[in-house]
């Protein structure tokens, strides 16, 4: 047996195969496909799909405009509720949002393909950079936004539109947050995240400073005294730990970091890939890292999740996507130990779990082992207490997140928050965009009264 232990190396697949594996997950619709699909929309009254959309896009309205070749009007209908309607068309779990609510499901179990129609309507706008929104007359007010992810950019765009001058403080070197760093590459090809960022900034009135972090480079108190309002869209900066021995060994990685590396890599083949990969977790990130590992050439990829398929954060579609990519999903299994040799981790030991009569999760004592050259942690993120703990001390927190009211206002005067860092944040771009929009409208109201 000459295989190295652990077996981790780049270029497991040729460039052509990797390019193919990381092409667009869903081909965009052609005009005739879009027209036929749009015709399937019943133009429901008080449409359930619109109710199911966190940003409340008038879905029958934009589909009707597709039907009459009014693509610009259709895009405007989408983007005025959700400025990231282009990204959401690619990454929204539509099967549990708008498309789940589609009345077509009742008799034919095939909803209108709202996601791809939304992409059909918005793609030309981003390609041609057609301006659809104008700034209102200057209010003379300034707003600081911390975080350049979906929540922050959504708030920034809406505030700029409403006439305020916005400054975005961004921790990373590029804007976009998880859209840029955290979503599987095949869901957003051709640098779409940056094209969307460019479109958002093109409205004007948004000043951006990259590579600056709250707590390290500036403080919340400074922002509060220098700006008329502050919006926090800081996401969740650190990753939950397994709490096992050997967790700091080479080969045990944060899924989110690896996905970011993959998104930023010019040559995806250059990333080291384990022969046997085990992913711990049950959300979208777990699926994204598992499928991408497989598509980079990992021989065997296992997802282990301590509960059942219904409790997984990843939708059924995502779970199916993993399986069709050859990923094995083990439900009801919790990691108990990481085994290592001199080179790093070599296997993970798991214990089966079940629910007791009271519905509480417990282990059964049955142990099994999976070979693991790489273990990815994808069990959620949390606020980075080490870096910003002091900053957040003044804010009311609950369950590790910032408490906000219905208008996304925090417990601190003139401070709003949204996205994953706030209570109600659910790891979805679309929810973060809505938080940013709601907060911007509330900030505008506060600054004008």
């Amino acid at each position, binding site marked *: 047996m000459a295989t190295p232990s652990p077996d981790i190396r780049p270029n497991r697949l040729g460039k052509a195969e990797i390019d193919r594996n990381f092409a667009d997950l869903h081909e965009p619709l052609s005009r005739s496909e879009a*027209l036929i699909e749009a015709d399937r929309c019943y133009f*429901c*009254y008080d449409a359930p799909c619109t109710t199911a959309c966190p940003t409340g896009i008038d879905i029958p309205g934009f589909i009707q405009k597709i039907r009459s070749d009014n693509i610009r009007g259709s895009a405007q209908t989408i983007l005025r509720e959700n400025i990231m309607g282009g990204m959401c068309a690619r990454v929204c779990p539509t099967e549990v949002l708008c498309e789940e609510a589609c009345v077509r499901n*009742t008799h034919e179990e095939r909803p209108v393909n709202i996601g791809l129609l939304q992409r059909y309507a918005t793609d030309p706008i981003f390609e041609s950079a057609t301006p659809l929104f104008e700034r209102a007359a200057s209010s003379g007010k300034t707003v600081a936004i911390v975080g350049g992810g979906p929540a922050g950019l959504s708030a920034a765009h809406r505030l700029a539109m409403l006439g305020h001058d916005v400054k975005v403080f961004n921790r990373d070197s590029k804007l976009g947050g998880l859209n840029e760093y955290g979503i599987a590459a095949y869901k957003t090809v051709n640098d779409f995240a940056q094209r969307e960022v460019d479109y958002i900034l093109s409205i004007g009135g948004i000043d951006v400073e990259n590579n600056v972090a709250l707590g390290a480079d500036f403080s919340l108190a400074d922002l509060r005294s220098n700006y008329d309002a502050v919006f926090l869209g800081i996401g969740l900066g650190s990753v939950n730990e397994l709490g096992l021995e050997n967790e700091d060994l080479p080969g045990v990685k944060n899924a989110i970091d690896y996905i970011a590396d993959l998104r930023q890599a010019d040559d995806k083949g250059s990333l080291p890939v384990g022969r046997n990969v085990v992913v711990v977790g049950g959300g979208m990130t777990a699926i994204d890292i598992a499928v991408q590992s497989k598509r980079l050439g990992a021989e065997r990829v296992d997802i282990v999740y301590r509960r059942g398929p219904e409790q997984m954060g990843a939708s059924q579609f995502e779970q199916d996507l993993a399986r069709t990519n050859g990923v094995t999903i083990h439900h009801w299994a919790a990691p108990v130990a990481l085994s290592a040799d001199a080179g790093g981790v070599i296997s993970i030991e798991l214990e089966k779990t079940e629910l007791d009569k009271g519905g509480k999760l417990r282990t059964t004592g049955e142990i099994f082992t999976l070979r693991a050259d790489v273990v990815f942690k994808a069990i959620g993120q949390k606020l980075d207490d080490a870096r910003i703990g002091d900053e957040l001390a003044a804010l009311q927190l609950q369950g590790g997140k910032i408490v906000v009211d219905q208008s996304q206002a925090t417990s601190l005067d003139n401070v709003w928050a949204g996205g994953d860092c706030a209570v109600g944040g659910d790891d979805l771009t679309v929810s973060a965009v809505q938080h940013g929009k709601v907060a911007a409208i509330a900030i505008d109201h506060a600054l004008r009264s």
Partner: protein
Amino acid sequence: MADLTSEFLGIASPNPFWLASAPPTDKAYNVNRAFEAGWGGVVWKTLGEDPPIVNVNGPRYSALHSNDRRVIGFNNIELITDRPLQVNLDEIRQIKRDWPDRAVVVSVMLPMNEETWAKYVPMIEDTGADAFELNFGCPHGMSERGMGAAVGQVPEYIQMATEWCKKVASIPVIVKLTPNVTNIVPPAKAAQDGGADAVSLINTINSIMRVNYDTLTMYPSTDGMGTHGGYCGEAVKPIALNMVAEIARNAKTSKIPISGIGGISNWRDAVDFLALGASNVQVCTAAMVYGFKIIDDLTDGLGTFLDDKGMHSVRELVGKAVPSVTDWQYLNLNYIEKAFIDQELCIKCGRCHIACEDTSHQAITQTLNGERHFEVIDDECVGCNLCVSVCPVDSCITMHPMTDGIDARTGKAISNKKLNWTMHPNNPMRKDG
């Protein structure tokens, strides 16, 4: 299966489906293919005087499409045959010889002078054709020259030209009527008075399809200019059915045989025309859109339908629905229906609600206990059938007659006594008793 053979004016054909006078019947090649496919007969594309007319060398056709490009309506500016008369006559003669069991009718359009009719009618009859069809219907091009619809719009001209033709023809004469009139009965009566053996209808309807959105000029165009065409296809069927039924139910015209034309695309459409008084039907657009093979569904579907109805021949179906067509003033105003929504089938799209709420009688709920729930409010429902019409689910909303009890809307007891407008107390012109 039921007997599909048809006899129209004594002309036998294996089924009641003829191809209408149009591009599909312009020459022997097409007609041979049609007969091979199983069509019962053809009306040869309209012959005229020599030298033949010329057609435009650009778009002759355009269509009203659904989003999946299904042709709903169809428009043409093609004229009558543009081939020399003798070529057509030779081909008609050969076709009739090769297909003795099929109907071969020849459409004719001639100027309004008797000598021309006296000259051409015998030449055409000599081919062995089964009948003439006089084209008094084409609404474009030829009508500018005093033929086609220009004749069909003036009953006196119809009668005159029909008489000229009948004088020299020994085979039956069918008069094809234009729908571009306000009342179809006078033209039909004029044909009858001129001695026509039958009428056929409808020809096409004056139409402009749309504009070109880039150039804001009429579409389609010939070198930048357009002219109105004749509209046909599925979209015109209801207009045609009304005209057929008007002739069939009018005492002055009810005896004249009718060949029904206008948007027939499947066997059900044929049932409509036959039940409303046509003795056979003619098809064009559906064949131009899908080819001659559609005859399979037309014949098979009609035969199966007749079997299901316990009818043995097409004849038994002809005119069946005519007695049910009347004037508005004779409708029973005491008859009451209410809509009913089957909650098992309802997909909760809300279309019935918003249609009724915005544009009608506010008679459909939107919610029940905070949940989407669409149910008819009998207190408000006037039985208008709008909800049935807009519901995307087949049979989800149905109309139910009230036979007894109280109408919740009016608070009045259901009366089984018929009451029409001529007797209604609100009618100042009512006939008492």
